[in-house]
């Protein structure tokens, strides 16, 4: 598991209130129960605070699953 993915794991467990949730790069709204629009807002906000980054509005479309999320987070952290 990448460092970014391991830091995302507790965020997902907290947002979805599921201490047994295990995310994978392919995890998306069809495989994670409760991943609706409000949960997505909670996720994005929590990720921004955890990693100290800010997403642009258009970048949200690049985050269709956990793998795309980690890729974008890594790019934004590297660009700081």
């Amino acid at each position, binding site marked *: 598991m990448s460092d970014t993915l391991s830091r995302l794991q507790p965020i997902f467990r907290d947002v979805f209130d599921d201490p047994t949730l295990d995310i994978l790069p392919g995890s998306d709204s069809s495989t994670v129960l409760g991943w609706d629009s*409000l949960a*997505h*807002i*909670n996720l*994005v*906000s929590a990720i*921004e*605070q955890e990693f100290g980054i*800010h*997403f*642009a*509005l258009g*970048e*949200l479309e690049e985050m269709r699953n956990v793998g795309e999320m980690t890729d974008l987070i890594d790019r934004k952290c590297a660009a700081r």
Partner: protein
Amino acid sequence: MKDYRWEDLQVGLREQFEVGLCEEMMATFLRLSQDSNPLHHDLSFAHACGHPSPVAFGLLTSAFYSRLVGVHLPGKYALLQGIDIDFVSPAYVGDLLCVSGEVRFLSEAVRRVELKAEIRTSQGRQVSRARIRVGLHHGA
């Protein structure tokens, strides 16, 4: 009523107001919630529990977080999305409460405002503290 729009908001922006806790509020909340626990209305029971008078309902005092968000910060365009509250100490009828909130985080991508808020008595005792998540109406 304040009407902050997204571009008006910044980390550190703070609003507060005061409200006196009265018997009528307690009676109204009891009627609404049907929470008849004696701690909130029975003086002798409250004394036996170590309180000088019946304890105000925690969710009555935290209702003022709703007013903080909907009227003061951000006000008119607010959409309350979530709130985590810790009840720190009791409040009693007659207390003058100061309700305050401060913008701690802004997410442009999802238009999310996060507030750190608290309620203190006029003596400075913290009654509760909260982390509040707020969105804004489209166009605000």
